[in-house]
């Protein structure tokens, strides 16, 4: 709510205040998705700002540029993940997870002195990937319109006399106000003046 903060709007004095909160429209998978989105932001910023530290910790020296690019990718997927289009964000996170795992597996090579760290990171990413998959399946399912089950409302005309008999019924006694008529605006703008 940037505007809200910038203008320091506040609730008016007499307005009702929340006494006890009730159940929310947010589901568990909505909350999980939101957490994953913020995780993307945290990780993305770290990768962008401290790629050298990450490379040293995992034995991936020389891949700093790649890590930075991954940071940008994380931030880019955080945006849809935190939006109402959660499936798009989660799908892009899952694609990112696969890239992360591929890169980390190169750090699992036998000669790497930081192999233990890389193994821990690998396990963490696998865990996060599982969460992404669960959240993706859940939000997809909860936002789906059940295909082919739509009801037929063709008996709901709302016009008690039927569409044909209703056509133009209001023309008998309804005058369109001047400001909604073609002649209104022009006539008002150029008042007739006596010669």
């Amino acid at each position, binding site marked *: 709510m940037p505007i809200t903060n910038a203008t320091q709007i506040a*609730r*008016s004095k007499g*307005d009702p205040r929340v006494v*006890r909160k009730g159940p*929310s429209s947010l589901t568990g998978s909505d909350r999980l998705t939101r957490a994953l989105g913020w995780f993307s932001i945290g990780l993305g910023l770290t990768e962008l700002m401290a790629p050298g530290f990450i490379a040293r910790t995992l034995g991936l020296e020389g891949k700093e540029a790649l890590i930075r690019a991954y940071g940008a990718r994380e931030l880019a997927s955080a*945006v849809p993940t935190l939006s109402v289009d959660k499936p798009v964000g989660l799908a892009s996170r899952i694609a990112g997870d696969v890239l992360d795992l591929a890169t980390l597996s190169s750090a699992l090579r036998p000669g790497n002195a930081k192999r233990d760290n890389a193994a821990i990171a690998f396990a963490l990413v696998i865990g996060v990937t599982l969460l992404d998959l669960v959240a993706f399946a859940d939000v997809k399912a909860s936002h789906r319109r059940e295909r082919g089950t739509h009801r037929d409302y063709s008996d*709901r*005309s*709302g016009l008690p006399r039927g569409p044909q008999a209703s056509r133009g*019924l209001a023309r008998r006694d309804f005058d369109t106000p001047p400001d909604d008529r073609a002649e209104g605006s022009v006539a008002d703008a150029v008042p007739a003046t006596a010669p």
Partner: protein
Amino acid sequence: MRALVWHGKEDIRCDTVSDPQIEDDRDAIIKVTSCAICGSDLHLFHNLIPAMLPGDIMGHESMGEVVEVGAAAKATLKKGERVVIPFTIQCGECEQCQRGNFSLCQRTNRKGNLGDKAFGHRTAGLFGYTHLTGGYPGGQAEFLRVPFADTTHIKVPDSIDDEKLLFLSDILPTGWQAAVQADIQPGDTVAVWGCGPVGQMTIRSAILLGAEQVIAIDHLPERLSMAAAAGAVTINFETESVIERLNELTSGEGPHKCIDAVGSESHVNMGQPDTLLDRAKQMVMLENDRPHVLREMIYACRPGGVISIIGVYTGLVDKIPMGQAMNKGVTFRMAQAHVPRWTDDLLRRIEDDQIDPSFVITHKVDLSDGPEMYRTFRDKADSCIKVMLKP
């Protein structure tokens, strides 16, 4: 009391809140008997409209019984009377109210300075909406404080059910104004984009106002079936080309009148690639709304035609083909509905069996199911078209 409260994006809860109290002589308190969820509430649900505060009470379509009246409202309103509350709050005295432009009332926006900054000049106070329009607590609640209650009410007879009267608060006059703004003439073809509750009311209004052919555009089969029930020809934009079909149906000349009952959140889909771009821009705050329907209407409209915009837009939009609009000489009319301007006339039409707005209700549930119903209505799940809530 219980109320549906906004806590953030997609986060609406049925909370217990303190009861509203009379704050001003012109106030009244009503005990809400029925209220509804509107497409405009979905823009708030998605946090597309700025200046909401966590703790704001939702809802602008409500009716009920007067339980308390301030001294200055006593002349026109009495305890026990049954009223529908328009979503616009009006003073009845300012220059705009005098002209019937009730959604532009100059006096009822209690956060007028905010309105002045955001819009250039303030507009009317609205219930259950952003603080740019006063941030008044809304009516998806057991009780509602009605400011300027001496003029902000529609008295309704006891003999008619809530179901038929509730929509005088918003979608019926809104759909009516959408059609009136289009200045419909006998012989006109009127194309209506969007078959949500507002579009449905617009279609019926266009028929009553004498449109020869009404064309309804959407992609949800259940909504198209409801449009067809009123005699509209339907176009499914996911399976058909809107422009081709409109030309076919008008001997290549285009509709005389085009009405936008979709607004800010045009459906995002591969078949309409501009919506993908708009959605991406929206996410990174380069654009506020997805104006696909505006673009399509300007292109489809017959030269010299009228474009009536009743769907809500919230801010900045991109790539509006102003060149087409200017060269084709189309007229634009748009507004938040001036609800009380039309309600006496519409109440008479309900009593006279010209229209029965209850046709649009597909879900009737307890207020406490509200948070769940916001999701159902948003996802267009369970063939949901209009949700009525019972506090």
